[in-house]
C-alpha cells in the first residue's frame, strides 16, 4: 500500500469517526427494534430445508396429531423455520395434494361463512406409511412444528 492510499484511508476514518460515535449514542425505541428484528428474522431466518420427498413423512406425522387445514400446517412449518428447498410456502400444497392422491390423507370440506376450507386428515394407509417411513429427525421436527402452533 503506498503513502497516498494510506493518507486517503486515514482521512476517511477521521471524517467518519464523529458520525459513528453519534450513532452509538442513539437509543432505538423498543417497538422499532422489535419491528427491525422481525423484519430481519423474516428476511434472514435460519431455515431447515427439506426436499418435497422428505416433507411427506413430516406432514403425515404432524397430521397424526389431529386434522388441520393447509394454512395452519404451513404457518406452523414457517414458525418452526422448516421449508421445502427451492420453493415458497405454496409448494407445500403440492405435497399435500400428492399425499391425498396417494390415499394417505383425506380432505374434509367445510363451509366457513361462504368460504370453503379444506381440512386434512390422516387415513389408515397414511398411518401405515408413517410407521414404515424412514426419516431422520422426524420426531424432533414434528415436535418443533407442533410447538410452533
Amino acid at each position, binding site marked *: 500500500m503506498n503513502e497516498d492510499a494510506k493518507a486517503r484511508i486515514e482521512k476517511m476514518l477521521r471524517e467518519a469517526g464523529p458520525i459513528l460515535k453519534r450513532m452509538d449514542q442513539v437509543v432505538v425505541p423498543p417497538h422499532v427494534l422489535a*419491528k427491525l428484528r*422481525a*423484519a430481519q428474522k*423474516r428476511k434472514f431466518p435460519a431455515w431447515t430445508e427439506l426436499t*418435497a420427498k422428505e416433507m411427506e413423512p413430516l406432514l403425515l406425522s404432524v397430521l397424526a396429531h389431529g386434522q388441520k*387445514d*393447509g*394454512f395452519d400446517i*404451513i*404457518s406452523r412449518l*414457517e414458525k418452526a423455520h422448516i421449508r421445502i428447498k427451492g*420453493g*415458497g*410456502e*405454496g*409448494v407445500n*400444497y*403440492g*405435497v399435500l*395434494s400428492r399425499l391425498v*392422491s396417494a390415499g394417505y390423507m383425506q*380432505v374434509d*370440506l367445510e363451509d366457513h361463512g361462504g*368460504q*370453503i*376450507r*379444506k381440512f386434512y386428515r390422516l387415513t389408515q394407509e397414511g398411518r401405515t406409511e408413517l410407521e414404515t417411513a424412514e426419516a431422520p429427525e422426524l420426531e424432533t421436527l414434528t415436535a418443533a412444528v407442533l410447538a410452533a402452533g
Partner: protein
Amino acid sequence: MASNTRIPPAVNESFIRFASNVCDQAKMDYDEWLPNSQELVYHLQNRWRELVDQELSTDAAEAEALRLFGGPSVVAKSLRKPWLMRLFQYKRFRPERFYFFILGYFLYTWVVISDTHWKDLIQGHTITPFQILLPFGLDFWINGIGSMLIGLAAAGCVVLAQWQPIFKRRWLNQLLLIRYSLLLVTGYALFALIIRSPIGAYKTLTAFMVDYSLFTSISIPFCIMHVIGIVIGLFGATCLIFEISDRNWNNLRVHTTLAGILIAVYVSFAPPPPKLPPPPGPKLPAILSTILDYNITGTTKIGKDVRGWLNKKEWFKIHQNQELIEQKPNPKNAFQITQSFHSDPQETYDFEYFYVGGDWKFHDIHLHSLHGVNFDLDLSFIIGNHAKAQGLIMLTNGVLTDTQKSFVSLFFNSVPFTQATK
C-alpha cells in the same frame, strides 16, 4: 392466528387472480378448481393479515405475501398431476380423450388393413381394404376394430347419461347402464392390440419377406408403422375405457359379470359355424410351367421379366407338362394365340404367344385370379397389373433408391404405381 383485519377489495382481487392463475397452470379438473383456489386465497389472506399486524403497509404486505407464497408456475408445477392421470381421469379432458381415440382408431385401422391385405395377397385371396372395414367380415371383429367402435358407443352412453335432464329419467338411465357390459367387449380391443396384432404382423412380415424378397427394405417402415399404430391405438382404446369406467365398481362388477355369463352361454350353446370347403390346392405353379419350353418374342419388357422370374422359381421347374385345357386363336392377329387354363373354376390365366419362324415364342401373360400356398406375390404384381409391373421393373433396375423403394412399396397396393412414381 391472524387478526380479522378487513382486506381491501383490490388486494383480495389480486389474491383471487393469483390463485386462479395457479389453478389454471396446474390444469386442475372442474371439481378440484374451487376448493383448491379458495384454499390458496385463504392462505394469502391470512398471511397478508399477519404481515399487516407486523406493521407492514397494505401494498407491502400484499407483495410480501405473494413473494413468500412462491411463483405461480412453481406452485402450479407442484400441484399438477402426471399428464397421463389427467388425460385418463379428468372430466376437463374428455374431448382430448375422444381425439386420442379417433387418432388411435384410424392408425390402428390402417395397420389392420395393411396387415390383412398383405396377408390375403400372400395367401392368394382377393379382398379389398373396403371389405376388411365392413362390419360383416370376420377381420373387422377379430382384429378388435369392431370392439373399439362398440366402446365408442358405450362412451356415447356416458355422454348421453350426463347430458340433458331427459336422460336422467330412471328407465333411460337404467338402459344406458348397458355401457358397463359393453366395456367387456371393448376390453377385447386391448387384447387384439397387445397380443394378436403384433403376432399377426410378425407372421405377415415373415411370409412377406419369403415371398416378396425384392422389398427387403420394406420391413423397417412396416415395423415402425405397426409399432406407432399399435401404441397409439392402445392409447386410444385406454382413453375410451377410462371414459366408460367411472370407477363405480359396483355397477362395473354387476354388468361385466352379466355380460360374461351371456357370452359364456352363447359360446356353450351356439350352433357350430358351417364347415367351409377345403381351399383349392397349389395348381398355379404347375400351369405356369407349361411355358417353360417356349422362347420369348422380346417385344415387351414384361414378357422378358416374367420369363426371368419363372426360370428362377424352384416350384416352376418341378411342375411341368400340365394338361392344356383350352386353346383358341386370337382373331386380331394371325400369329398370336391365347391359351386359357381353367384347371380350377376360380382361377383364370391367359398366356399369349407369337408363332415366329416356325416356333412359338412367349409374349405376355395375364393373370385374373390366383389361389394356393405357392402363390408368388412378386409375380402377381408383374402379371396382374402392367402399370405396376412397369413400376416394379423400375424398382428392380435401380431407378429408385432403397428408401424410396420402401416408402413407394408401402403404398404400392393402394395407389396406381404410374402415379406414385411420376
